[in-house]
């Protein structure tokens, strides 16, 4: 009986999360179809999807696994450049654009997963602050490697160089990645629909993983490492699983991001981007995936909506951020919110039992 109630409670929570995503997509798609969306906002639709995916995937490491990772943009960039390279190589080979985009995203996921394993193996020996610093360093290493990477393709296949585009020795081929200039002439394959589908995919993978044997093991390690070992959980394995799955999903989002622009530079995927994604997760509530989705969407749109105010928009953005952070961490403000929520949930005629049930549902790690 209790289990059924529990299952229904988490299932209900998941359905709400999926519903928010679906409704938001339908509304936006209607606005786009009727051309009632501004030019600026229209250009932000794919980035919003990308940052929502990144927020969900980083929550797997920060919220579910309980490790502070500061190098998420690094995995995003691995996916971005491997994805756009795949899409350029497949030009003329694969006909339909959506299929080419899908293949590029899969390639991006695989490359980011490899990067996740290579970086994760040494990093998972560390904990806490040390892990955070080392992920930060790896994020910068990836950015600098890409800054010096030259990649081209011609009839003979792919050519790599770490020196210059001339060192590639291309014969009437195309330079895909030109060091610090990044990639130009990228096909803009990303669409709002693709972004929506990638969000659904990311959400499904993360929620299904969290609510399973694997997810419980990851959360057990987070809550108490020694106790987790004492019941036979291989701590390193499960921390690594969370880290690599998160990296894979970040890479896929990176590919979607890259193919929304004609030019992509490695500098875009720096420390600031990693912090931005972390802000989404923290602001949405660490471990709260739905909150992370909403905060990623709002914070991506906010600077553009404030642009009309002129020079002061970044100032207001920062003030809003600080106010929300303080409000959500202040006990008095939170209890006021809880009281408000209880009042909203209590339908007329229902007894106080329902509100007690609602109060129980507000756990910190509710998805």
């Amino acid at each position, binding site marked *: 009986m209790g289990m059924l109630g529990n299952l229904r409670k988490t299932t209900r929570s998941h359905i709400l999360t999926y519903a928010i995503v679906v409704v938001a997509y339908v509304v936006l798609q209607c606005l786009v179809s009727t051309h009632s969306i501004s030019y600026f906002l229209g250009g932000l639709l794919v980035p919003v999807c990308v940052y929502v995916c990144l927020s969900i995937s980083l929550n797997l490491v920060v919220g579910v696994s309980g490790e502070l990772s500061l190098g998420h943009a690094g995995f995003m960039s691995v996916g971005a450049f491997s994805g756009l390279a795949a899409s350029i190589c497949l030009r003329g080979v694969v006909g339909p654009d959506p299929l080419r985009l899908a293949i590029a995203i899969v390639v991006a996921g695989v490359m980011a997963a490899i990067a996740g394993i290579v970086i994760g193996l040494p990093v998972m020996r560390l904990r806490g602050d040390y892990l955070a610093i080392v992920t930060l360093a790896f994020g910068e290493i990836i950015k600098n490697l890409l800054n010096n990477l030259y990649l081209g393709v011609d009839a003979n296949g792919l050519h790599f160089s770490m020196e210059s585009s001339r060192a590639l020795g291309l014969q009437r081929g195309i330079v895909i990645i030109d060091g610090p200039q990044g990639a130009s002439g990228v096909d803009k394959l990303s669409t709002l629909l693709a972004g929506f589908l990638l969000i659904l995919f990311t959400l499904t993978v993360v929620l*299904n993983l969290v609510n*399973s*044997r694997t997810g419980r093991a990851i959360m057990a390690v987070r*809550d108490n490492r020694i106790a987790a070992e004492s019941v036979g959980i291989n701590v390193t394995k499960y921390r690594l699983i969370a880290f690599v799955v998160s990296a894979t999903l970040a890479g896929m989002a990176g590919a979607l991001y890259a193919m929304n622009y004609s030019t992509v530079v490695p500098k875009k995927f720096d420390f600031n981007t990693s912090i931005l994604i972390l802000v989404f997760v923290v602001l949405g509530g660490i471990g709260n995936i739905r909150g992370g989705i909403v905060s990623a969407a709002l914070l991506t749109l906010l600077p553009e909506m404030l642009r009309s105010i002129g020079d002061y928009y970044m100032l207001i953005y920062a003030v809003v951020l600080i106010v929300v952070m303080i409000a959500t961490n202040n006990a008095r403000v939170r209890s006021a919110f809880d009281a408000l929520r209880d009042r909203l949930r209590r339908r007329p005629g229902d007894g106080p039992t329902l509100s007690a049930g609602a109060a129980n549902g507000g756990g910190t790690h509710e998805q």
Partner: protein
Amino acid sequence: MSSEDRDKREPMGDVGDAVLECQHLGIEFGGLRAVNDLNLVVGRTQIAGLIGPNGAGKTTVFNLLTKVYQPTHGTILLDGQDTARMSAAKVSKAGIARTFQNIRLFSTLTVEENVRVGLHNQVECGMWSSILRLPRFWASEREYHRRALELLDVFGMADNADDVAGSLPYGAQRRLEIARALATNPKLLLLDEPAAGMNPSETAGLMEAIAHIRDTFGVAVLLIEHDMELVMGICEKITVLNFGEVIGSGTPADIQGNPQVIEAYLGKQDAREGGE
């Protein structure tokens, strides 16, 4: 645990063969020998006690057995299998489960999820089956639920299955830790001060529960406890530690009459007299 597993076990009280045998077990921290030359035998389905004054090294022995610490000397044989070089997770799979002196639950998970984590190596389901929600996943979840509730029922906690573990009262947290440990299907259960913080009637209930656990699960129990009534009441064999070394071992009656043990607990007879 299923009934078939229980039937495979030896009948209770068969102390003839040992489930745990430690020889010359020891650990040094820097120059300090926290545990030195420890020989300890626990019979199959025996209830054994490990006692000694504060700082004698009792919990360190548990940490050596469960590989929280790596022993610097000696061997540990669990049912004939050498576990001294295994990782903590492998030791759990080999058959040692434990509770902790300062309770270590997965405090943000529910009561049922805590036991489900304990069942981690009893019910298998791979990551891909979980992500893709294959039939394998649903079957394993049903199995997890059934076995978790079966265990919680033994401890009278089935009604609390959906409560967050960290919100439970102290006594219930201790019981949940034991349930989680038993979920790993151990051959040997280590209990670190199970009666700490309990009143006399709760302690009496705990004594019954420990005997019941041994009989139902066919598991050997080694416990650390300061409550002498509990130790003398249920332990069939007692080992006394002081300054990391065994100073006495035997039945409760042997221990109560052992002058070395009395000295460790109460101080030297003539020294006390001299002081008066």
